[in-house]
């Protein structure tokens, strides 16, 4: 394998079209310095000059885990945006350094499950060529900042969150004070009214809001999180001006770095600190730190905000009509296309355009898994139909955000030819699922086969559609990578005397009215799960009123009716 070169000159890397951040010489320099640094660290490790324990946080901060089967490399996809060029590079890496697969995670990242340790510096250099990296995708540091996958194209947006995500990305990258936090730290920013970024269950959740004077700024929550002790974040700053974003974040981080617990890794997240300190006292500490740095040099400038915004301007939209005749006739003549349209296509802020979500949840395929050929194909489709860009979602799907309505049918036919036209978006079979026992060393139980067995049980599309919005999340252990706490139905793998069992919870949601699921009762064996889901769905269908979603019915009638039916003939 050749050692790839690093491109220093930003002018070589300009995208033909697109609305992404593009690196200048500073960004390139930092990335190439990082690759060189990690190459040196890896060499010293392989030479026996760095111990396992010393190499561990260094490799984690470069996205490298050592898993059950092989190392796993997690690559950051800042705010979920990928260009066609980047997709092709990922495809190349999947082909040449992995087994022809990549995996989309639940945090808008991409993972490779089979790289060789020796080759990781080369992979990082290939990524750097296309302005990508694996920096801080694991370890006890500030992770990749995420946002709504419809940022910038959603009709209900207050402001595009991506420029602020980019500002936070730069601030958090190699932040010297916060490289060794008590525990991992996740930030999400949401600028849309309908929150799809699960903002409230992040260590810091940021909402773009308007105050009474009509000024746009941020409402900042802290202390949300999933994992062992799921918590909804609490408000620390009701409103901060845009220029104060970084100093406010820095103040929260400083209190956490100093006071977060380090004696017990299960109590080390900021949610525990906020709870043990009390919200008021925590807020006071943050304000005390903030006074010191507020209005100091870290205060953002209008110029910097404008500079970052300029990367996310609208692409060259044409002036088009909504609902063109080609679309109407395709919808009336092709029922399959019509189902896909209804489920996977969403309204766009610009007339004549739509947002398309490509479901990566075909039955029999591990949720989030994608082949090198599919990556290449998505790159091609993005170029043809969506200004050369895609977005990766928290639900492990891929979005083509700017598709002309008069090209939807054409696009659908192409997706169909590559088995990418599943029309199950947001339906019961659009399952969120962590890698689980098949890949992950920490797992108590498998999760991918569970997802598949449920998908097989609900193979009839008419039935799925009649069930409507129902989110199932599956995690293979308490670490909750599959976010089971916020699934309408959550499934958690547990270990009972060496056997794999599954605990089911109901009523979770990561939407605006975020809530955490309640455990329904004793855990089930693997082969019972599809039947349990079927019973839960039957209760819902029996009790629902017109237009009520699963979660609404649950909120109205509570857990008991579900419990009764599920455990009725348990023995």
């Amino acid at each position: 394998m050749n050692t790839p070169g690093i491109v220093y000159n930003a002018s070589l890397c300009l995208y033909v079209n697109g609305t992404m951040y593009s690196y200048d010489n500073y960004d390139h320099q930092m990335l190439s310095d990082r690759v060189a640094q990690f190459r040196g660290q890896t060499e010293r490790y392989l030479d026996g000059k760095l111990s396992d324990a010393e190499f561990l946080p260094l490799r984690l901060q470069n996205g490298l885990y050592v898993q059950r089967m092989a190392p796993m490399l997690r690559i950051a996809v800042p705010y979920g945006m990928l260009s066609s060029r980047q997709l092709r590079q990922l495809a190349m890496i999947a082909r040449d350094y992995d087994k022809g697969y990549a995996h989309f995670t639940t945090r808008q990242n991409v993972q490779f499950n089979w790289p060789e340790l020796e080759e990781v510096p080369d992979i990082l250099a290939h990524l750097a060529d296309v302005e990508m990296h694996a920096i801080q995708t694991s370890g006890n540091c500030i992770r990749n900042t995420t946002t709504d996958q419809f940022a910038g194209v959603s009709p209900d947006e207050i402001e595009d969150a991506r420029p602020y995500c980019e500002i936070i990305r730069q601030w958090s990258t190699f932040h010297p004070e916060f490289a060794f936090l008590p525990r991992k730290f996740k930030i999400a920013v949401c600028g849309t009214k309908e929150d799809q970024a699960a903002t409230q269950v992040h260590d810091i959740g940021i909402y773009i809001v308007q105050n009474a004077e009509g000024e746009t700024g941020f409402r900042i929550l802290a202390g949300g999180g999933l994992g062992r002790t799921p918590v909804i974040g609490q408000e620390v700053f009701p409103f901060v001006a845009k220029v104060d974003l970084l100093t406010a974040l820095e103040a929260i981080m400083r209190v956490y770095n100093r006071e977060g617990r380090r004696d017990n890794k299960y109590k080390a997240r900021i949610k525990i600190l906020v709870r043990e300190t009390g919200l008021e006292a925590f807020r006071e500490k943050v304000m005390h730190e903030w006074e010191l740095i507020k209005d100091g040099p870290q205060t953002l400038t209008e110029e910097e905000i404008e500079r970052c915004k300029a990367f996310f301007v609208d692409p060259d939209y044409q002036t088009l009509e909504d609902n063109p005749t080609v679309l109407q006739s395709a919808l009336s003549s092709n029922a399959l296309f019509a189902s896909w349209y209804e489920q996977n296509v969403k309204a766009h802020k610009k007339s004549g355009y739509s947002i398309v979500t490509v479901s990566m949840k075909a039955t029999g395929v591990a949720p989030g898994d994608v082949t090198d050929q599919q990556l290449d194909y998505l790159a091609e489709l993005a170029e043809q139909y969506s200004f050369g860009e895609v977005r990766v979602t928290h639900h492990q799907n891929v979005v083509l955000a700017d598709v002309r309505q008069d090209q939807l049918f054409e696009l659908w036919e192409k997706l169909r030819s590559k088995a990418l036209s599943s029309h199950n978006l947001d339906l019961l079979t659009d399952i969120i699922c962590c890698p689980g026992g098949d890949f992950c060393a920490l797992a108590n139980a498998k999760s991918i086969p569970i997802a598949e067995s449920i998908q097989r049980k609900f193979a009839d599309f008419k039935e799925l559609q009649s069930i409507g919005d129902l989110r199932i999340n599956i995690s293979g252990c308490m670490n909750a990578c599959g976010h089971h706490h916020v699934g309408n139905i959550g499934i958690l793998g547990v270990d009972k005397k060496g056997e794999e069992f599954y605990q089911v919870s109901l009523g979770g949601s990561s939407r605006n009215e975020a809530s955490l699921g309640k455990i329904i009762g004793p855990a089930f064996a693997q082969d019972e799960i599809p039947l349990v889901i079927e019973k839960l769905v039957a209760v819902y269908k029996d009790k629902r009123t017109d237009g009520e979603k699963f979660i609404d019915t649950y909120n109205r009638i509570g857990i008991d009716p579900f419990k009764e039916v599920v455990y009725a003939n348990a023995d």
Partner: protein
Amino acid sequence: MPTLIKDGKVERNDWTLLKTATGPEILSAVPGKNFIVPLQFWRNYQAEISEYSGEFALWLDSHENVNDIAEEVHSFPLIALNFPAFADGRSYTNARELRERLGYQGEIRAIGDVLRDQLYLMSRCGFNAFELRHDQDADVCLAAFEDFHTNYQGTVVEPLPLFRRR
């Protein structure tokens, strides 16, 4: 004797670090030395300290807060901040606060589990001296200060963030 890097050069270390368990009798046993003492020692043995012929500096452990000695810091030529384990990041915050909140101008020395791959971060937070763990190769360590050409954040070394310099 562990190696000391100070202001980018390998230097002789003429300070002696006192462990937390040490009592004041050490002072009468070895006259004329320069000691870096733990906070408790400083608080408890003021009388013995004032009679002693050598110099004193202070070291803080990672759970101790520099703001608790805000009044006294400027009287010390050196303050050492301990890394009980390299993955314990609290002393980074202490160093920044010492420089940025308290305006401390003296030497800030990293002690404890001080390794090559953290030196760059430490220096950006205001450390200017590094007592390396015994197994570290000082020459290899010197290269660490060149790991990156530039950074996004403003810090002690470069107060302006990149967006004000771009």
